[in-house]
C-alpha cells in the first residue's frame, strides 16, 4: 500500500532516486540514553541502538502501511493516478511539440507551466511522511504552490507513507531546485539539449513510478510495470544526472555575470551568499550521492526482481 520504503523512481535524475538513498542524515537522530545525566548539547549517540531503532522504525512503518484506512487509500490512489496522468500529458506535449517544430528549441517554454504544476504538486509527497522528526519542509513559493497548501495540511494529518521526511524532502527539493532555481530562472539555458535530456528521463521515470504506485495501491500490479520500474532506472538515472549536471554547468557563466540570487556584504543581517559557488557545491555533491543511490536501487532491484536475500551492511 502506498509508497514503498525506498520511494525511489525507476530511473531519472539524481533527484528522482535520491529518496532511495540510505539516509546519510546530517543530524544524528538517535536519542540520548535515558538518565545520561551529563549529556551535553552535542551529538549524543547510543551507538548500540542506532541500527535497532531504524530497523524497528521500518517495521513500524510497514505495520502502518497495512493499516491504511479506506479514505487514505482512495486519496493516495487518486494522487498517484493524477501524477501519472500529469506526466503523461507532459510527455505527449513534448512529443507533439517535437513532431510539429522539429526542434527542441522552445520546448521548455511550451511545457514549463505544466511541468511546474506537477513538479510542485509533488511537494505533497513530503507531507505524506510520518512527522516524528518534526521537520517540516518549508519550500519556495510559486504561483501554483498556493493551491497545494490546503492539500498539504490534509496530508500532514494522514502521515501514512513510510519514507522519512528528510529523504523525500531532499528528493522533492532537488526537483524544485532544478525546475525553479535553475531552468526557470536562467532563461538562456532553456534551449540547451541537456534540458531535454533530463526532462525525458524524468518523464519516463515518473510515469513508471506513479503507475507502479497506483497499481500497487489497487493490489493489481502487472509484472511489466514492476519490471519497468526496477530496470529503466539503470539507463535513465545516469541520463537524468547527466542532463541535470550539464544544465547547471551551462548556467554557470550567466550566474557569475549577473550575480543572481546572491547577497553581498555589508548588510543588516551580516550574511552573504554566492549562488555561483552554491551551484558548484551542488554539482560536486552529485559525486558522493549518485553512486550511493544508484547502488541502492540496484540492490533493491536484486531483492525485488530476483528474490535475493541481501544482508545489509552494519551501520
Amino acid at each position: 500500500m502506498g509508497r514503498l520504503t525506498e520511494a525511489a523512481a525507476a530511473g531519472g535524475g539524481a533527484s528522482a532516486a535520491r529518496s532511495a538513498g540510505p539516509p546519510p542524515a546530517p543530524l544524528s537522530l538517535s536519542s540520548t540514553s535515558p538518565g545520561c545525566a551529563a549529556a551535553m548539547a552535542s551529538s549524543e549517540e547510543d551507538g548500540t541502538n542506532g541500527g535497532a531503532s531504524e530497523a524497528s522504525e521500518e517495521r513500524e512503518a510497514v505495520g502502518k502501511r497495512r493499516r491504511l484506512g479506506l479514505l487514505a487509500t482512495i486519496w493516495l490512489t487518486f494522487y498517484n493516478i493524477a501524477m501519472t496522468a500529469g506526466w503523461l500529458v507532459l510527455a505527449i506535449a513534448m512529443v507533439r511539440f517535437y513532431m510539429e517544430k522539429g526542434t527542441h528549441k522552445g520546448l521548455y517554454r511550451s511545457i514549463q507551466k505544466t511541468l511546474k504544476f506537477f513538479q510542485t504538486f509533488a511537494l505533497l509527497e513530503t507531507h505524506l511522511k510520518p512527522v516524528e522528526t518534526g521537520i517540516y519542509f518549508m519550500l519556495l513559493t510559486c504561483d501554483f504552490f498556493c493551491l497545494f497548501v490546503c492539500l498539504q495540511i490534509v496530508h500532514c494529518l494522514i502521515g501514512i507513507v513510510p519514507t522519512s521526511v528528510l529523504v523525500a524532502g531532499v528528493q522533492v527539493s532537488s526537483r524544485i531546485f532544478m525546475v525553479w532555481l535553475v531552468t526557470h530562472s536562467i532563461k538562456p539555458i532553456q534551449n540547451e539539449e541537456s534540458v531535454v535530456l533530463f526532462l525525458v528521463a524524468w518523464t519516463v521515470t515518473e510515469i513508471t513510478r506513479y503507475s507502479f504506485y497506483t497499481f500497487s495501491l489497487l493490489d493489481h500490479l502487472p509484472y511489466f510495470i514492476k519490471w519497468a520500474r526496477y530496470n529503466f532506472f539503470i539507463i535513465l538515472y545516469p541520463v537524468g544526472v547527466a542532463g541535470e549536471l550539464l544544465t547547471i554547468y551551462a548556467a554557470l557563466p550567466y550566474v557569475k555575470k549577473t550575480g543572481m540570487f546572491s547577497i553581498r556584504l555589508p548588510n543588516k543581517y551580516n550574511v552573504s551568499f554566492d549562488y555561483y559557488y552554491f551551484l558548484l557545491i551542488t554539482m560536486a555533491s552529485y559525486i558522493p550521492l549518485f553512486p550511493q543511490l544508484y547502488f541502492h536501487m540496484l540492490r533493491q532491484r536484486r531483492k525485488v526482481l530476483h528474490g535475493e536475500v541481501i544482508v545489509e551492511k552494519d551501520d
Partner: protein
Amino acid sequence: VGHLHLSLGTSKLWVPDSIRGPYFLICIVQVEILDAKTREKLCFLDKVEPQATIAEIKNLFTKTHPQWYPARQSLRLDPKGKSLKDEDVLQKLPVGTTATLYFRDLGAQISWVTVFLTEYAGPLFIYLLFYFRVPFIYGRKYDFTSSRHTVVHLACICHSFHYIKRLLETLFVHRFSHGTMPLRNIFKNCTYYWGFAAWMAYYINHPLYTPPTYGAQQVKLALAIFVICQLGNFSIHMALRDLRPAGSKTRKIPYPTRNPFTWLFLLVSCPNYTYEVGSWIGFAIMTQCLPVALFSLVGFTQMTIWAKGKHRSYLKEFRDYPPLRMPIIPFLL
C-alpha cells in the same frame, strides 16, 4: 571434599567454605558466543560463574579476540535483539546452562571525553583565528587589525567563555553513562561544530560587519539573556551531577534545588537544553548575525529531539513523573 556431576549437564562442585559452613554450592555455566550475522562460533567459555556480569564476559572474550575490545562489543540474547548491559548478571538472564550470546561489532570506538574535548576546543580556537584576523581570511589590508565595534569584542568574549565553560564541564562536571561512542561520530560532530564556528566567526569579525540596529540597548539586553542562560545551564549541570554519585549509573528524577536557576525543572525535563538555546538566541540578538540564528535553530532542532527522547524515557521509567513538565519549552514543546 568431593565432586558431583549431575546428568543434566550442569557441573556442580561441592567446595568447602570456611566462612559460611562446611560446603558451598556453586553452579558453573558455559557461555558460547556466536557472530550475530553469520552464526559462526567465535568463542566458547566454560567454567563461567552464574554471577558473572556481561562486562566480565566481554573481558574474557577480548582475551581470545584482542581486536574486539569490550567497548566495541555488543552482546545480545537474540541476533536482532537489544544489546545487553554491562551490569546484567548472567544468572538473571533467560539462559540455560549453556548461554548463547550473539556478538555484533560496534566498530571502532572513541571515548566521549575525547570527542567532547576535540569538538569544543575547535570552535574556541577557530573563532579566535577570525577575531585576530589572521592572514588569508579577509584580505591583506585587514590582517591583524581589530574591529572598531565594541560588540565584536564582547561577542568574542562570550563565545570563548561559552566554549571554555564547556571544556571545563567536560573535564570536571559531567558524569557519562556511556564510556564510548562510534569513531565516525567525531568526524560528524567536529564538522558541525567547527564548520558553524568558522561560518559565524567569519561574519562577526568581518571588516564590513554591521552592528545591531538598536545599538547598545540591544546588545545589553542580549548580553543579559546570554549571561543568565549560561548561569542557568551551569546550574543544571551541577544539579544533574549531584543527582548521581561518582561511578554509579543510577537514574533519578531531577528536582529543583535551592538554586533559582534549577526551578526550571518544575516546568521542563531538560532545562539544560532550554538554557543552551536561550544562550544562543541571546548571542544571535547581540551580534544580529543570520548564521548565528541558523546555528541556534539547528541546535534547537537537535536538542528538541534529544529532550523528547529523554522525556519519554523518564515517563517510561518513573510512574510518578511530574505531569506538568514538558521536554524542552515550558508548556509548549
